[in-house]
């Protein structure tokens, strides 16, 4: 019985994630495509450290 409810729960989560993927991620993808800029080949692929990157905030997991 417990196994059945576990499987049902997993199925429910998958169904929710399925919709999240196609709707939310899909919408984000649309915005991403519309805002994407086409750049030519750069001279270097190094990303320079900006001011924000140079200071590290340690107290947050983000």
């Amino acid at each position, binding site marked *: 019985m417990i196994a059945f409810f576990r499987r049902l729960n997993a199925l429910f989560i998958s169904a929710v994630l399925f919709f999240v993927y*196609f709707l939310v991620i899909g919408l984000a993808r649309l915005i991403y495509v519309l805002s994407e800029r086409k750049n030519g080949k750069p001279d270097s*692929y190094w990303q320079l450290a900006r001011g924000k990157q140079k200071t590290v905030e340690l107290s947050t997991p983000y």
Partner: protein
Amino acid sequence: MNILGISAFYHDSAAALYIDGKLLSAIEEERFSRLKHDNAFPFQAIQFCLNSVNLTIDDIDAIAYYEKPLRKLERLLETFVVTYPFALRPFLQAIPDWLGQKISVEEIIRKKVGFSKKIYYVPHHVSHAAAAFYSSSFNTAAILTVDGVGEYQTTALWKGEKDKLTLLKSISFPHSIGLLYSTFTAYLGFKVNEDEYKIMGLSAYGLPEYIQQVYRLMDMKSDGSFSLNMKYFSYRESFRMFSDAFIALFGPPRKPGEKVEKRHRDIAASIQVVVEELLFAMLNHLYTQTKSRNLCMGGGVALNALANGKIYTKTPFKNVHILGAAGDSGAAIGAALYVQRQLRGSSPVQQITSLYLGSSYSNESVESLLSCYPELTYKKYDSEIDLLRATAAKLAKGKTVGWFWGRTEYGPRALGARSILSRPSPRAMKDTMNKIKRREEFRPFAGSILQDHVHRYFYTPENKYYSPFMNVCLIVRENKRKELAAIVHEDNTCRIQTVNEDNGRYYRLIKEFYRQTGNPCVLNTSFNVMGEPIVEHPKHAIEDFLCSKMDALVINDVLINK
């Protein structure tokens, strides 16, 4: 101040404990769970660290976690956006995994570990950079961190000055040398995040005939920066590392267990050459940015010993420091070191010269255990020199000896605390050892050599060259290749560990072996059999001893025979 560093949930979960600025304990979770590269939260490793110094979690002032989990989740979600709609399956698998455990690091630390004070989240590559630089003897250094991926960064150039780490430049996911190498590891039929060193070993048997194909996978600039052509990779949107376009370029992938053919060897040689060229271009660029002759490297790619050995000839760097645990387990040390510098301000240099930081067992417990194995005969030595003489004599006669002594090593390398040893010649010793370890024939063995003699046997950057963590391959001198026949690889290199007084009894054993044979080097391989982590408990050592063709086993002061 007591700081506990933790790494978890990717691979090689570990804990490291600093008490008042001293690294007193560190161990990987895999040693206890017996799952190689275990990525579970390291409850047992944490408990070990606390027990080893008779502290409880309430005595810890701060916990330093080795990455920022929410930034990592953000990168994951961004990847799903970029790969939409092709990554549904990974999405359905990854999100519950993240929501279930990975995202709730704080909750785990609060509720399950019972820690109520401050938790600090150190970005992944900062943890690597801190582990690399703060564990060195340098006041200033150039630092390169390279791995699969942290939060976003995969590669970063840094400058280290006293207590300060300054990020100069970086490259972000999905462009990653670590993932590039892992893609070839998977393509050649080996395990990702585990068997990369097999590709390194295999590369010596091949010719780099696929270099042009490898270069088609990326756009590389003269400053060492690069961008992977994602058409050839599928690690963002599927569970497979390489795409159909990759297969079209290199041919069908090798299945696990299939025979290794010339094509596989040549591909391994090609990716090794390209990765080396990338690394050296990066390092040369890093030198122009920092003008420091001191180099520290961190991240999993820094475990590529073959590339590391060439740094001295291919770049301007003169002094190189790579911590033995350069991968994610070492990031637990790095996170703790970084937090310590932030909280305490200026700290003296805390060079790590020894990684014997793990568990140890008493002679009494070993003797008690041996009473359960009546088929074994053993002798406990009261005098260390007698034990060393007897052990060295066995090695000199060509016997293989399991060597379990003192505290276990931190990191992926056996450094003479949990090792299987033999003399480094004749060549047949390699086959004998391969049978004991049950591993592939093409894989080389490493050597431990007295530091005072290293320059006589290898082409070293300096006399008495210091490389205590076995992460550098050097070319063996022509006149010594016969003497080291079992550890000289196909390309005439050998991965070496230089041994001095810091290595305690292991140093004294090799000194005794040198006295008896005139050879200052022994073959040293990790004390485990294929697929298992290094032995943790004497019981694991005895069981491996019994089920293999090892000739003798030394556990602390006890010499055991079959």
